[in-house]
């Protein structure tokens, strides 16, 4: 924002020049009227006494060859007025340009900063945040601030400059006329301030009603089948009519306020002009004021009244802007994920009490903190065909604000290239374990114990970005960006060649779906493109993870929306890749479990069973019950075919 200060200052100077030059335009006309036209010998019969002219004007007039010469060259007035207006216009243009550069620059900086900050806030923050509210802070609130800087600041500047330039000029010309010209302005200012405060209140209530109205339409349209099924069209129309009428009436109430404000404002302003003119005419008739001065006063008054009418809005916008700034400040004050590992694992300041790194420094750190690990690390470890060596010891983790630990006494080891399946009812802590491995959460809160070691390094000492760059993950409800399919696949590794994308897509059984789309790999996903089914999204996410070639692969119920046949194909492909990566699979289906080297059964945050599939089949427990189910079905099928 500080970079915009210079622009603001220059814009102010331009504004000053534009306004100043702008006022010289009527002055030029006034001089011409007074000293060239009104003094013409032909007008001697008029009863206007000729007044003494100020010494400054006299010099200017003399330089121009005196009144006599001016009369002969009246076109000079055209040149002067037009020329001054062009100069004023040029500065006004510069002012408009610069103030837009400043205000839009401020808005852009704020948007970028917020965007970056949001991406760096910890997952914990996003768990609780209301996304609609966040988006509003990032857009509408910034827009309020931008508008204030673009318009109202200049409006305030304009009013100030007017007050500082025109007022002395008017006072110099005639103090009494000035006093009379400003008679109604202070009460008008007070009135307009109270008016805009009222408007804000009503505006809020109109917006609420509009929200209700939109809500009813939305509800009606999403439930249109229910409406039709019960033939409730008339009932719905009556229901809609209530807020619809209320919205109209509140809008009319607002209209009433506006009509009152503008009629009073316009009436008073016109009255003020009449008052000034009348007093002026009186003094002109008594010879204490020149006609040119009256002309100038009339013109200045029109200029002065414009900002007076807008000042109420400025003040009320100022209030809105301070609120918007505070709301944005709240978000920016949230501490971001610490990029460097905390020195001591147990220190609480590492995540909670830590003072927020200033967004500016975070931003400048970001490029250096994101080492080009994606490709290199993946290739390096992928090249050895080993995968990560993962050791979890005595892990205990509690979610913030929860009493019971989500994970407790977790002990297991995954050898490089091993595939471990995790089963358990929902809420058992499976996903939490995945999130910890990704450092989306840290196991350093109060009561958290244990260690996670990746290739002999303690996880909490490895920079987050490095951890994530070397881990591939597929969530149950994967998120795809509104980009092309190709770009989505490349997210994990930007330089992946096309044939690798296709191989990964084939392994994830999504290649054929992709080539079936009109634009193949260049098909856009999202609002402006195609909508993928849940299964297709999961397969895309698997392919995306495979493209990345990570030494550690986490699949969080990644095949839940995929049909059984495709699932078998994908599992077969993953088996072929077996050994390239250490793989952790959360699964709900026996078929997915079958290809794992070992199975962990997780219940209430604890590992209750471990072993190979064969071992678990023979022991009482969750796995065995699943396994029995299958044989039950088979026997039922057997019976029915027997009966028929």
């Amino acid at each position: 924002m500080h970079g915009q200060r210079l622009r603001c200052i220059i814009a102010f100077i331009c504004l000053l020049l534009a306004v100043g030059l702008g006022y010289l335009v009527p002055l030029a006309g006034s001089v011409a009227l007074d000293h060239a036209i009104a003094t013409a010998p032909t007008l001697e019969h008029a009863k206007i006494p000729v007044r003494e002219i100020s010494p400054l004007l006299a010099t200017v007039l003399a330089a121009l060859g005196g009144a006599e010469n001016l009369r002969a060259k009246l076109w000079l007035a055209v040149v002067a007025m037009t020329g001054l207006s062009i100069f004023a216009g040029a500065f006004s243009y510069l002012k408009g340009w610069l103030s837009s550069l400043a205000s839009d620059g401020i808005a852009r900086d704020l948007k970028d900063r917020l965007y970056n900050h949001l991406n760096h806030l910890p997952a914990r923050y996003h768990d609780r945040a209301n996304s609609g509210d966040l988006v509003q802070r990032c857009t509408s609130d910034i827009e309020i601030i931008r508008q204030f800087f673009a318009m109202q600041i200049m409006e305030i500047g304009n009013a100030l400059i007017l007050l500082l330039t025109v007022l002395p000029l008017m006072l110099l010309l005639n103090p009494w006329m000035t006093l009379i010209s400003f008679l109604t302005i202070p009460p008008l200012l007070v009135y307009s301030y109270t008016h805009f405060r009222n408007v804000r209140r009503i505006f809020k209530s109109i917006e609420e009603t509009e929200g209700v109205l939109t809500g009813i339409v939305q509800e009606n349209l999403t439930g249109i089948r229910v409406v039709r099924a019960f033939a409730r069209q008339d009932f719905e129309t009556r229901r809609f009519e209530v807020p619809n009428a209320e919205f109209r009436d509140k809008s009319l109430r607002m209209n009433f306020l506006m009509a009152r404000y503008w009629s009073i404002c316009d009436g008073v302003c016109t009255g003020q002009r009449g008052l000034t003119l009348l007093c002026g005419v009186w003094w002109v008739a008594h010879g204490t004021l020149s006609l040119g001065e009256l002309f100038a006063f009339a013109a200045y008054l029109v200029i002065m009244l414009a900002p007076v009418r807008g000042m109420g809005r400025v003040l009320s916008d100022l209030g809105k802007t301070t609120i918007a700034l505070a709301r944005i400040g709240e978000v920016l004050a949230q501490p971001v994920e610490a990029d460097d590992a905390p020195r001591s694992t147990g220190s609480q300041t590492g995540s909670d009490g830590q003072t927020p790194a200033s967004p500016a420094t975070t931003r400048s750190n970001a490029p250096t903190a994101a080492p080009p690990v994606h490709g290199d690390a993946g290739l390096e470890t992928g090249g050895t065909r080993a995968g990560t060596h993962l050791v979890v010891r005595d892990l205990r983790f509690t979610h913030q604000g929860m009493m019971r630990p989500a994970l407790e006494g977790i002990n297991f080891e995954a050898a490089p290239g091993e595939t471990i399946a995790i089963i358990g009812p929902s809420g058992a802590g499976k996903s939490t374990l995945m999130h910890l491995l990704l450092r989306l959460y840290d196991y350093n809160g109060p009561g958290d114990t244990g260690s996670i070691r990746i290739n002999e390094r303690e996880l909490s000492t490895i920079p987050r970005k490095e951890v994530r760059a070397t881990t591939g993950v597929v969530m149950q409800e994967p998120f795809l960006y509104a980009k092309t399919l190709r770009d989505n696949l490349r997210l994990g590794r930007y330089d992946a060649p096309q044939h690798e994308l296709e191989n990964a897509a084939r392994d994830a059984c999504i290649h054929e779906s992709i080539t079936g789309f009109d634009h193949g790999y260049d098909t856009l996903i999202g609002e402006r493109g195609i909508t993928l089914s849940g299964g297709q999204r999961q397969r895309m996410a698997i392919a995306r993870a495979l493209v990345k070639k990570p030494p550690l692969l986490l699949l969080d119920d990644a095949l839940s929306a995929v049909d059984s046949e495709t699932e078998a194909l994908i599992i077969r492909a993953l088996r072929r890749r077996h050994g390239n990566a250490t793989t952790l699979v959360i699964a709900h289906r026996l078929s997915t479990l079958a290809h794992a080297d070992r199975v962990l059964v997780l219940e209430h945050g604890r590992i209750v069973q471990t072993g190979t599939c064969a071992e678990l089949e023979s022991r009482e427990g969750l796995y065995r019950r699943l396994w029995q189910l299958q044989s039950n079905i088979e026997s039922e099928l057997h019976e029915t075919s027997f009966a028929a």
Partner: protein
Amino acid sequence: MPPPAAISHQEDEFRANLDAGLWIKVFKRALRVRNYLLLLLFAAIVTSLIESSLVFLIRWAIDGAVEHGTAAPFALYAAAFATYSLAFGTSVWFFIRISGNLAHRLAHDIRLEGFQRLQELEFSYYDTHPIGWLISRLTSDCDRLARIIAWGTRNIAADFFYVVIVSFALLWMNWQLGLIVIAALPPFAVISIWFQRRMLRSARDVRRYNSQIIANYSESIQGVRTTKTLVREQQNLTEFQGLTGRMFAASVLNARQNAFYFPIVTTLGAFASGLALWRGGYLVFTDALSLGTLVAFVQFAGHFFHPLNDIARMLAEMQAAQAAGERVMGLLATEPKIKDSAEVETRIKNEKLKIKNESEADAVAAVAPDGHSARIGAVEFRNVTFHYETGPDVLTDFNLTVRTGQTIALVGASGGGKSTIVSLVCRFYEPTSGAILVDGLDYRERSLLWFQSQLGIVLQTPHLFQGSVRDNIRYGRLNATDAQVEDAARLVNAHPFIMQLEHGYDTAVGENGNRLSTGQKQLVSFARALLADPQIFVMDEATSSIDTETEQLIQRGLETVLRGRISFVIAHRLSTVRTADCILVINKGRIEESGTHAELLAKRGHYYELYTSQFRRELEAEVLERDLAC
């Protein structure tokens, strides 16, 4: 499922020319709002008359002072100015009130009419018009259109009259001087239109980038975990900065255009004043012009161009709002494709008369409003072929007869046509060829409203309206007593869980019923359907997210609901499939297999395959859930 429609999200297509026909249509509609439009025109003329007469007032006062000196009638001047201010203020008041009344009442009426139209339109309209799109037609587009009508009339009428009056006044005061000032008009008009169009275009760019930025924000917030796990923070920021950079450039361009345009208006004004001063000065020397007239002239010339500027802006805005106008008028002009035929309508009318004459309530109950029997004994698909507006046939030559008391379970892969069959039964769509018969009579010969009020529908994602549980159940029969509502809830086993809610039947269900679980919502919608006492019952079962206990509750509730009705169930749950009278395996718009559970299993065909893959998965999930429960 209908194919997703390709909808242009371009909200503001730019039209090269003003479509006069559209605006005439829009203004004709505005005429219906009492006489506001005419009043507004009148107010506009009066206001501009008053506004323009100020100059004469000023001239009168100055000339009086110049001529009579201190003897001028100052009290009269004062009275005149006071009256003038009062008149001006009053005219502004009326003017704003009238245009506000016009705008808000018109918006209200258009909204209401649009909403009613949406209640009548067939579902294929909804397939091609997403809900979000329709909502903005009824909200922002309506407001924008109404505002343009009200303020457009104001600007164009008032400013136009102002300019005309002032032009006449100038010519009348002194035609030579007047012509000089008026000569500046044509170039000004050209410049204005040129600039206004460009400003509109850049303003639209700004809006477009802004909505992209909003979309980007919500994407980044929703996908923040993915961003983190893919270490995309830096890359995302770079892309986002590209977007904010483009918005910045567009905003600055728009500001520069504005900053360039307005000085032109002012300079033209100064130039015209200067010219008037120059020529007028000579005329004063020759005594052909009074000094007061010259002052009036110079002032006038300076303020002549701002109203013109308003007109130019208004025309440009109308051009921009044209798309909104077309969409709203288009919605109002869309005729529902599925509605009662003229013949049915006359029959309904006759029947109404008959009821009035006979007043035998018992005899009437057995007769539907269209004069046919009110009982439905059988529904038959006869050679039905159907395709959605775009796309291939979903159903080909489909035949099926269902009688009262029968439950038909539809199973099969998604996209096979199950939902289509159900939508056709409900007459949400009509067959492309062939017919659906109700007791031997094509259902297109029956009253649409009556037929649909005989349906009970429970959807996969049961839709509840905001309000209490009681309100939602009562939606099935609006005049049901509290006792009847509770009886219906008891019958479907919803009563126990409702009583456990915080306020029992008066508990608010929240937006879309979100405060209830899916299973609970389904029970409430069962009760709602039961209260309506439908003759045809349609159900699209939920696949998951119901625990075993609720599952059993639903199963028992379902049996009550299905008794004595014609039922179509798109079945996912084993329990429903097993108890159905007939299972149809639907694939590619045809019946591949039909029969009872045992018969089909024995066949070892498609049903067998489905059963072993799809249903087993559910059982596995159930085992896990049961484990969680204990």
